[in-house]
């Protein structure tokens, strides 16, 4: 543990735009520097938080971009990160622009976090709550492998992995 104790809680609030996702990663890396994170956990955390923020940027709002909120809550043994929007709710909207997403966001979050919870109601926004242990006993990707595969047509097919 570093001598400089990190703040127990950090809150970021910014417009839900693509350029903000890297800023969240930078803030997360800064906070993790002050905590005794295993490098592999930090790497997984950056990926999971990126996917959660990307979901907000791509799916949460209609034409008018809303806010992306990220809370980092440092506990004794783990860091909880909450990514929240005030958009349409848990049922994702199609991407506003650009190619369709692979649908890998939530499966990746499940595989990379030690605990994960999704809360949302129609019209009242969505909250993804992820917890990461500073030191892991086992790899969460073993318990929650990413389902899906690339089909014969070359497109990603979400679903059960091949046996």
């Amino acid at each position: 543990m570093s001598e400089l104790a990190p703040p127990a809680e950090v809150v970021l609030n910014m417009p839900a735009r693509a350029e903000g996702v890297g800023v969240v990663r930078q803030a997360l890396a800064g906070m993790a520097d002050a905590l005794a994170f295993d490098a592999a956990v930090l790497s997984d955390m950056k990926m999971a938080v990126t996917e959660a923020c990307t979901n907000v940027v791509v799916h949460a709002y209609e034409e008018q971009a809303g806010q992306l909120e990220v809370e980092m809550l440092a506990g004794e043994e783990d860091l909880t990160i909450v990514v929240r929007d005030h958009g349409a709710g848990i049922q994702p909207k199609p991407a506003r622009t650009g190619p369709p997403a692979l649908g890998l966001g939530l499966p990746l979050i499940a595989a990379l976090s030690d605990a994960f919870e999704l809360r949302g109601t129609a019209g009242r926004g969505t909250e993804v709550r992820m917890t990461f242990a500073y030191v892991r006993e086992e790899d969460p990707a073993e318990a929650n492998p990413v389902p899906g595969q690339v089909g014969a047509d070359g497109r990603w097919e979400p679903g059960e992995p091949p046996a």
Partner: protein
Amino acid sequence: MEANAIVLDDTAGDVIVVVVEGEHDIYTAPTLRERLDEALSHGGGIVVDLTAATFVDSSVLGALLDARRRALESSQGFVVCVGDTVEPGVQRILDITGLVPVLPVMRGRDEAITAARTNGGPDIAAG
């Protein structure tokens, strides 16, 4: 020098190498798609070199899979390489999505260029 650059290297002749450096996500994925389109338009093999990439997310994987599909449809070789010192987070997302044998992912750029040159067409998926 740009920190998160995506540049085309055509020094291998018939195979275009798309060199991806730094962090890439939903913000830079449109640029990556443009570069991949440009590389595909040359008509030869494509290698995407992630050796100097420090972060890639599912938006990047989406761009790579789309480019791979289009390459295979037009019998152009498509190979990703990660070098010997790949960033663990980059290797991690390729591993847990099962994309290493699919894209396919190799180590060295030279090896990848050779594979992209000789393995054009649908049979590449079997490798």
